[in-house]
Every structure is written in C-alpha cells, then in structure tokens.
C-alpha cells in the first residue's frame, strides 16, 4: 500500500461523490441543490489538483487535466449562481438559470468520473 495513492485517491473519489450529491435532484428546482455542497466540491477538486502538482508521469498528466476541467466547470456553475441570485437569498435563482448551473456541474461529474476510473485502473494494473 502506498500512502500517496491513498491520499490522492481519497480526494479524487470524494470530489466525485460530492459532485454526484450536488447534481442529484430535479434539474430546474433550486431547493433540490445545495450551494454548500457545490462550494465544498470546488474546494475538494482544487485540493485534488494541488496534490498532483509535480507528478511527471503519464497518469499524473491525465489526472491533472481532469481535475482542471472539473474545477473550471464547477467554478463556472458557482459564478452563474452568484450572478443570478439576489444577494443573501441563494434560492431566488430562476429555474432556467438553475438548469444551466446543474448541467455545468453535470459536465464536471463526467470529468471526475474519468479521473476516478483512470486512477483506479492504474492502481489495479500497477506492477508493484
């Protein structure tokens, strides 16, 4: 067992899990999606990217790329939310805007999924 794999794997899988938690629910209903979960997902994603900094292997490159994509999409979703809600009331987002926010998070979900699958596959075929 390799401690680095445990830590990196923990953050990658946690990012995916939080992403799923946020996306679950009716796509246009603001009450089904929690802004805290979204923010937490962004944070975990950024940490996952940070942990891969400095890895020159091929696996490191692909994990870095997927991490950057999902962070970018989640941050965009959060920005759309901020821009379209009245200050202080996160639930005041119109349902059309909510669809955009959740589908952006859905895109990030795909990227997180790729990241976890790649990571798992590499760990399984690892010779050591």
């Amino acid at each position: 067992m390799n401690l680095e794999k445990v830590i990196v794997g923990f953050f990658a899988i946690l990012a995916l899990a939080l992403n799923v938690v946020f996306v679950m629910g009716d796509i246009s209903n603001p009450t089904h999606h929690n802004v805290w979960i979204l923010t937490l997902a962004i944070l975990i994603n950024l940490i996952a990217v940070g942990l891969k900094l400095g890895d020159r292997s091929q696996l490191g490159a692909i994990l870095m790329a997927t991490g950057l994509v999902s962070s970018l999409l989640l941050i965009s979703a959060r920005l759309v939310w901020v821009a379209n809600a009245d200050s202080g009331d996160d639930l005041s987002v119109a349902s059309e805007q909510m669809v955009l926010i959740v589908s952006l998070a859905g895109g990030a979900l795909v990227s997180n999924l790729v990241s976890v699958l790649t990571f798992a596959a590499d760990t399984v075929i690892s010779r050591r």
Partner: protein
Amino acid sequence: MATTSDLNRVTSIVLRFMRGPILLLIVVYGLGITGMSLIDGHNGRPMSLFHAFYFFTYTATTTGFGEIPGDFTDQQRLWAILCLYMGVVAWLYAIGSIIKLVQNPHFITAVAERRFARTVQTIREPFVIICGFGDTGSLLARGLSDNLMSAVVIDSDPERIKALAMRDYWVKMPGLCGDASVPKHLVDAGIKHPLCRAVVSLIPDEELDLKIAVMTRFLNSKVRIICRATDKQQQEHLSHLQSVSVIDPFELFGVQLRTAVTGPRLHNLSQWLVGAKSVDMDRQTQIPPGNWILCGYGRMGRRLHKYLNSNDVSTVIIDPGLKESKLSSNMIKGHADYDNLLKAGIRDAVGLVAGTDSDSKNLRILLSAGALNPDVYMVVRQNHHENEMVFNAAHVNLTMQPSLLTARTILLKLISPLIAQFLDHLRAQETAVTEQVVERLYQALASHKPHLWTQKLCDSSSFAIQEQLDKGRVLRLEDLIRSPADRSKSLNCLPMVLERGGEAVMMPDLKAQVKPGDLVVFCGDTQSQQLLNANISNPYTMEYLITGLEPPRGYLLNWVWRKWFQPKAKA
C-alpha cells in the same frame, strides 16, 4: 546535384518528344478559334473569343456538345467541320506521341532512376547500401529488415530488382537496377546521404567490388565499407583503404569449422547469438581426435586444410582436380565416390567435409559416407540457399552455407559490432570462459530466443538515468536490469559488452558503475527490452529500482515526506 540532373533529364525528354505535337495543337487551336470568332452567326455577330475557345475545346477532343451557344449558320457549320477534322487529328498525334514516349525504354529508366533517387532522399533513418542482390545480398536485406534497418539495393539484374519489390520487408528497401560501379548510381543510392552508415559490396565479380570500394572512399570519406573478397591480392588492395572490412567467406568458413571442431560450446553460442534455428545450447559434440576426409580442394578446401592442419588434425584430400605431380600420400585424385571414400579410410575417419562447389555432389558424398560410416562427424557445404530444405533433411552435424555465413557476419558487424568483437574475444580465450558465459546466459534467458540490442546511456530515451546521476546516485549495471515489478528480481536479460570511450569490456561485472555516454549491449528476450526501455525513461521507476523506495510524486506530499518520513539512513 544528382536529383536535379535526373529531373532535367526527364523534363528534357518529355519536351523533346512533345515539341512537335504541342506546336501543332497550338497552331490548330489558333486557326480554329480565329476562324470561329470571325464568321457571323444568326444574330449578325460572330462568336466571342471565349465562346469560340469553348466550342473548339469540346469539338477537338471529340466531346461534341452540339451547337452552343445557339444554332450555327451554314458558314459556321462549314468551318466547324474543318475544326473537327483538324482538331481530332492533332489530338490523336499528340496522344500517340505520349504513348510512344512512356513506352520508350530510356524514358522508363530515367523515370525509375529519378523515383529511386527521390525515395532515397526521403529516408530518415540510418541505412546501408547493398551492391549486389544475390543469395548473400537478399539474406542480408532480410536480416536488416528484421532489425528494422533500411537498405538501398543496387543490382544490374532487373529480375532481382523486381523480386526485391515483391518482398515483404518491415522497412523501406528501394532498389535500383543498374551497375553499382557507376558513380552516378552510387550517388543516387545515397552514398553522400548523412544517414548512410555503410556500403556493402557483394558483387560476384571481385574487380567490381574493389572498384566500388575505391570509389566509395572518394565520394564519402567517412562511410564504412564492407567488401567481399576471396582473392589475396584484392584483400591486399582493400586493406590499404580506410575503414574497410574485408569479408572472405572461405576464411569465415574455415574459422567456423575450426571453432566447431575445437570449441563446440563457443560454436553453439555464436550460432545462437546470430539467431540460427535449432541450436541446442546443451548439446555439445566433442569430436574425438582422428583422421578427417576433405572432399573438394578448391579455394575453400585449401583454407579448411590449412585450419585443420594448424590444429594438428590429419586429413586425406579427395579431389578430381589434383595435379598428378603434386600428389602426396594423403591425397587421392578422383571423385569422392564409394571406392575413393573407402580408399581414404572412411571406416576409421572421425570427420568428413563434403566441400565441393556443387550441392548435388555434396549430397551424394553424404549418402555414400553415411552408408559406409554412420558415426562420422559430417560437415557439408551448402552452396545455394534454395536447397535449404534438402540439407535440413540430411541431418548432418554441421551445414555451412557461405552466403548465409557471410550475410550473418556482415549483419553482426552492422547491427551490433560490439557482439562481433565479443565473439572474437571469446575465440581468443580459454574454453572455460565460454562455459561461464553460456552458464550465465542460460540462467538469465532460459530457453527464450535471444535478442541483441545496444543501448546508449543518457540519450533522449534514457533521460531518467541522467537524472539519477545528477542527483549524485551511483548507478550499477545490476540496477538497469532489475524488474520493475520487484527490484530483487531481474529481467530476462544480461549485459554482454560495456563500451566506454572506445574501450569495450566483455561480460562486465554487474556491480560495474555506468556513466553517461556508455554503450551497453544487452542480450535478452524482446519483452525484457521493452521493460528496460520503459524503466530508463521513467524517473519514478528508476528511483524505485535504485533505492527501493517510492517517494510521493506531487510537490506537496513529496515535501511532507522528505520533512518527516524519509528514512534517515538513505539521506
């Protein structure tokens, strides 16, 4: 430049041939178009120049769309008839000339030469020029292809060049039909190309081989020359040229026979390393001392006689061409038939060499000898490669094929010159050294097919090694061949030669340190080569192989690890 002169030649032939037809076409077009744009149509005005050109184009080429843009007047129709006949005749003449041109043998040669020169110019990997594509040449090309090295072939026989184009090589093998001793052909074949590694001259006429060697030296002072020569005088001439390797098939044959007789283990090893089929490393036939019978006393027979004599092996020679005056007690004039073999003492002989230059004679000798003394050690010379199946079926102890032997020796010189050195080194040593080498190879490789490759350390593909050395680590040969799955095990390969600064160490100690710029020849299976290549280009694997540790890869975790967890002993 050769290519431009070829280009000029092709262009100039086309221009010369097409000058007449093109002039005629221009005149006919001019005449027809001018007439059409002068004759009035139904609307009282003649056609515009563009319409006249359009009309003439589809009429002269017999396409015939009809009367476009409108119905013609009778005057116009009259002119149209004239246009049609004129145009069609001019076109037929032009097309006929083109067909005649492409059938012209000089034109075909010029185009083929130009295409060949262009193909050679596009080669992007190191290549070899092979002059002469006979038995040896084609075996060599096959061997080069198996080692993914390109070759350019020149042969004066068009049938052989056609056959070359039909072969399924892994790499590009352009062929030119022409006399290789013509400098222009050598230049076309890329003798001045910066990636040209060697010129191999294998033409049966040894005068030409010498001529090619001399011209090559003038055209390119650096390229390596490998030349086949059996004549002493030719060899003398060649040895004065720089970086020329002279290959004498009969000499090789003699050395091989001597090795087979005196050191069967080494013979097996060298056969195994060059990839000969059905070599059993365990099998070794120690030939008891005794009489040998030598059938055939030509150029090869003399060499064999010399080598056997130098090892104190007594011989009886049977040859129909022996001179009566020079006959001594151990020579028999006549064909090696039943009676003469008996006379030569086949029943008590330990070895027999069927070494005439005719395959059918050699096979006959084998049959008679086999009937008289089945236990005799039989060596046979196979002259033609196509007879291979018969010789394989004959179950002799040693088949020696000059063309195959020559091709393999040249290939070894080209692909892994260090291995050629290695074998020479072993020949000069005691047999115990060979035993050790065989033992170690056997342990490392078991029954895998051997594969030789040369690895240059610290070039672009092995940058991970450089990184480790920059960190001040000591890198040993044993670290290079560790298995990435478990560093305590090693890959199925063994370093055979370590070359540093022009000096080669044979069978280097595994504890030996490696330095940037070293050349290492490995012998192993293909899988081990792939794994080794992956190891030396991956900094993380290299780190593991040397230290046995796997530090975290990311900056952050790596910092934490170094700060708190790194084992102090290794620091």
